[in-house]
């Protein structure tokens, strides 16, 4: 969270916008988004046939556009959206459009401080990565861009892109390799059958992907260099948070899934399924969603599965700040449950968003949904009023307060609540 120390942690409650009024004022109001610091709320609104604008707090952008979509706040609080003018697309930032127009633009990404805004663009059927209005030059023509990421400092951009054109039903060309990774506009030397799971280390130094070498052969590439080992299948790799030379990924061998670090299998047990390996903040522990048996899901920490299992699924594990506790959202018999260290906490919900730990680990706070209303739940128990719309709670840097942003009776409130009160 950018600049979180300087956010307003003092005002107990601010009513920042009456979104109910938007509904009277405009033909249609889309779902709202808020800025990271909770100070702004925005919705795309329809003001007439083929005419849209964005309502932000009490005002709107000056100029309406034919189409607007993908409104997202940059971490520095600027509001971006993708818009059309005369059938051409571009990025608008706080209502001001980039100069360059594009055949298409999508997939907005931000640097951690929000100063850098990047997106994938298409001009004259050529694809590119555009960063703060400047499209990176690429020595080869990119046929398509599947996904792109930028480093937290915004200095490195990387994308999975098709670097070789293919004719219709060109099986040979495909198997020779037509996909690669483009880093700051420069493609890697080799092309691959397929490239998946693009991941960048926090420091932006290393880039890892999964690649497919032939019909049933997969591996991991780190900065163009493949692991020596190949596998029957892989899932997306993750970096050690402190040591960007350590890369871990789920790999499939002999009909089972294992966890491998830098090519070597590190967990003794194989699983029916293994997803979302996650390092603790200090990097000393790894947790992952696993199915020790078919349709029995749980979390394994350092290879040891919890004894409790869930029949439907389990999502990405989440470590407490000190790395001692692990929380995850699981689904069993149609209900979503919060699970911490192998025990279900509190009640079942219709939906649970990603959990947040209090600094001393004793509280797990989540946004939950029950009977069409949203609420904040602490350790699986609803503690706050029902909201029509609600965002994930944010714990203050000193760990004493929580910011809760939500819409009640059409009014958007930003509240700061002492942690001890919830």
């Amino acid at each position, binding site marked *: 969270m950018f600049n979180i120390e300087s956010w307003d942690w003092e005002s107990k409650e601010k009513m920042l916008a009456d979104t109910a009024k938007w509904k009277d004022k405009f033909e249609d109001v889309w779902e709202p988004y808020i800025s990271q610091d909770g100070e702004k709320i925005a919705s795309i609104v329809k003001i007439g046939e083929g005419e849209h604008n964005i309502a932000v707090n009490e005002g709107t952008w000056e100029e309406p556009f034919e189409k607007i979509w993908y409104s997202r706040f940059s971490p520095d609080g600027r509001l971006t959206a993708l818009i059309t003018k005369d059938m051409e697309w571009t990025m608008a930032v706080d209502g001001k459009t980039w100069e360059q127009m594009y055949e298409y633009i999508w997939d907005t990404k931000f640097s951690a401080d929000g100063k850098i805004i990047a997106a994938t663009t298409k001009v004259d059927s050529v694809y590119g990565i555009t960063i703060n209005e400047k499209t990176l030059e690429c020595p080869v023509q990119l046929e398509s861009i599947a996904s792109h990421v930028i480093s937290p400092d915004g200095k490195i951009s990387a994308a999975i892109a098709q670097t070789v054109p293919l004719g219709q039903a060109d099986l040979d060309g495909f198997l020779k390799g037509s996909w690669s990774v483009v880093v700051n506009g420069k493609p890697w030397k080799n092309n691959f*059958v397929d490239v998946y799971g693009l991941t960048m280390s926090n420091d932006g130094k290393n880039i890892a992907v999964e690649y497919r070498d032939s019909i*049933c052969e997969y591996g991991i590439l780190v900065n163009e260099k493949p692991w020596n080992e190949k596998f029957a299948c892989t899932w997306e790799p993750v970096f050690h948070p402190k040591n960007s030379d350590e890369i871990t990924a789920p790999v499939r061998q002999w009909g089972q899934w294992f966890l491998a670090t830098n090519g070597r299998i590190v967990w003794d047990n194989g699983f029916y399924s293994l997803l979302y390996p996650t390092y603790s903040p200090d990097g000393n522990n790894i947790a992952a969603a696993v*199915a020790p048996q078919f349709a029995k899901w749980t979390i394994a920490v350092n290879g040891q599965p919890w004894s409790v299992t869930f029949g439907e699924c389990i999502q990405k594990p989440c470590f407490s700040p000190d790395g001692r506790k692990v929380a995850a959202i699981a689904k069993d018999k149609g209900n979503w449950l919060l699970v911490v260290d192998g025990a279900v906490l509190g009640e079942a919900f219709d939906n649970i968003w990603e959990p947040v730990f209090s600094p001393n680990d004793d509280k797990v706070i989540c946004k939950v949904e029950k009977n069409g209303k949203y609420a904040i739940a602490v350790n699986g128990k609803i503690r706050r009023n029902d909201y029509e719309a609600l965002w994930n709670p944010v714990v203050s840097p000193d760990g004493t307060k929580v910011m809760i942003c939500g819409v009640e009776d059409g009014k958007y409130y930003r509240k700061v609540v002492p942690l001890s009160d919830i």
Partner: protein
Amino acid sequence: MKPTIVKREPVVDEAMDQCEARLTEEEIEKVINEVIDKETGGRLWTYINTCIHCGLCAEACHWYLSNDRDVSFAPVTKIKDTLWVMLEKKGKVDAAFIKRCSQISHTECNACRRCGMYCPFGIDIAYMILVVRRICAKLGMVPLYLQDTVHSHAATMNQMWVKPDEWIDTLQWQEEEAQGYVPSARLPLEKEGAEIMYSVIGPEPKFLAQLLGNITVIMKVAGLDWTMPATAGWDNSNMAMYSGDFEIMARVERLHHETAQRLKVKKIVMGECGHAFRGAEYDGPTWMGWMKPPIPIVHAIAFYYDLIKSGRIKIAKKIEGPITSQYPCNVIRNAGLGSKLRYIMSAVCEDFVDLIPNDRHAFCCNAGGGTINCGPPWKKIRVQSAKLQSENFKRTGAHTIVTPCHNCHSGVEDIVDGYKLGMHVKFFSELLIEAMEIPEHLKPKEE
């Protein structure tokens, strides 16, 4: 055992011919034994050891029945000519044999599972056919166009090489089209927390974009809270499941189901497609270790049934004249939606003429199971082998055949062309758009 007498017109499939020239016997032996030993278990063993060679499955198969009871098309023959030989010879077979295996399993069987239903032992012959396909896929012996489709899934996570921007652009265009009928209609992209994520198969944005406009209108009239993803994961189809490339199948299904989880929806509603339902509801989740998809998936038939039955959608004027419907194997025989299909057909048609046989006993359109995706080289035999179903259609005297499945749609169009039936082929949603009531307040204002 004497070899089966097989009479076929030669078919040129470049990919298979090249693969035949390339494959070595060592490679073949290795892959066959690997798949049999490592990827199969109790089911295959028991099926092989239980089959008493009674031949009763033959009568279940439209390939056999449509080809004047040519023995080489009978389900049991298809196993005899593939797995029995592989098992007996412990994988020591040649490339020509593998090519024939691919021809049998990919192009001459729809994995419709009718024969399994007619086997006194319940031997799932279609499962064994998929084991054969798996072996072929690992060896690269897959018909050209089917393999190309699988490559599309692998590279783009959709069936039709649709690029990320083309997908979003198409949805935005179809939203405008829908607003022509219902000005307030919206196709909400990436709306986290919506009730429904609607997913479709690749050919919809590529060739049948109006279907996306139709659903936008239907959702608005029904007053539902829905969304579509603006990222890969929107395509619910899966030809990798049918080529035998299960790793790609799983990757596609995982992304589809994780997209629904990311969007925090309560359910996925999918368009009218049968194999996609199979992949998303059953084959994909099974490989991933999910008993059922983490976010439940509802097929269009069940979805429209709920909308009509609950009165969310009212029928203003039923469609006139006799209309029949194909029963897509993957949502009827293999998902039990037959009575719901009859309900919605009767609700929108004045004169719904049922097929005989109907429901789970109905015959396949002969396009399913990936066969139509094997492309032009294999079209002639496919249409020729749908003779039986062409006669069943003809007997109904209908002016329109409804196909709540994309494969059926294309397959039945080929049948209508090939046998000069002079019938229209439509999706159910196309009938619904014609027949449903658009409330006054949603209609365009008169200028």
